[in-house]
């Protein structure tokens, strides 16, 4: 059979016979419908491969999965050791991230404070120089505190 699938559907809808039709027209329609779904599906997967979907959440997700599993593991540990306390499980699970967030916040807090202090000095320096100074000073402070 020649021609595109779209052409074949049009022919069936307007009546008439397609030469070389494989037989029962409803089976043929089912096959064509399934073919269209597969075409759409393969285009969708193609879009995913090129990461061109509007959502695009498949980049670097494995790290998040690992974190999710850590949270679950801590939560389950707390659940089992507390005799089935869901609140303890949730606290323990959230604590995995909060500890990491507190660590991140600590260094950010120092950076923000140093940056603000430099701002108050009203030093006539460009942004790159400012970043270098903030990084250096923050690094020294953090090193002394931890």
């Amino acid at each position, binding site marked *: 059979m020649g021609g595109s699938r779209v052409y074949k559907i049009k022919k069936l809808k307007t009546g008439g016979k397609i030469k070389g039709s494989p037989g029962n027209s409803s089976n043929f329609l089912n096959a064509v419908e399934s073919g269209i779904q*597969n075409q759409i599906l393969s285009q*969708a997967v193609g879009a995913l491969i090129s990461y061109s979907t509007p959502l695009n*959440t498949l980049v670097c997700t494995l790290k998040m999965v690992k974190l999710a*599993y850590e949270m679950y593991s801590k939560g389950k540990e707390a659940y089992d050791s507390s005799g089935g306390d869901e609140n303890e499980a949730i606290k323990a699970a959230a604590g995995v991230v909060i500890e990491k967030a507190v660590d991140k916040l600590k260094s950010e807090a120092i950076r923000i404070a140093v940056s603000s202090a430099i701002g108050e000095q009203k030093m006539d320096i460009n942004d790159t120089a400012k970043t270098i100074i903030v990084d250096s000073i923050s690094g020294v402070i953090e090193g002394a505190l931890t």
Partner: protein
Amino acid sequence: MKEKSIKEFVIEIYSLLIEENIDSWLKSEEAIVRSKLNPQEFLSLKIKIKSLSAEIAGEFADAVIKEGFPEKEISPQKEKKILNEIMSKYMEKIKNESTN
């Protein structure tokens, strides 16, 4: 509380994300997709998407665990390569099914 393996985590999360991404692509192509499928066919397509997402996620999980995940870190480039290889394989498979 149910015991879950890291593999199950990978499959569940990736399955959801793949499905979400395909759904979001479908929304962006809604006019064309709706013109080719009636509501029943569209529903049937959604079911196929769910099943396909789970299959891709399952193979991806096997592949990354074989690479040593979670003990070994998988770089974002490697992650993308593995996922793309699996999705390309499925894309070819679906294309072949639609032309047979």
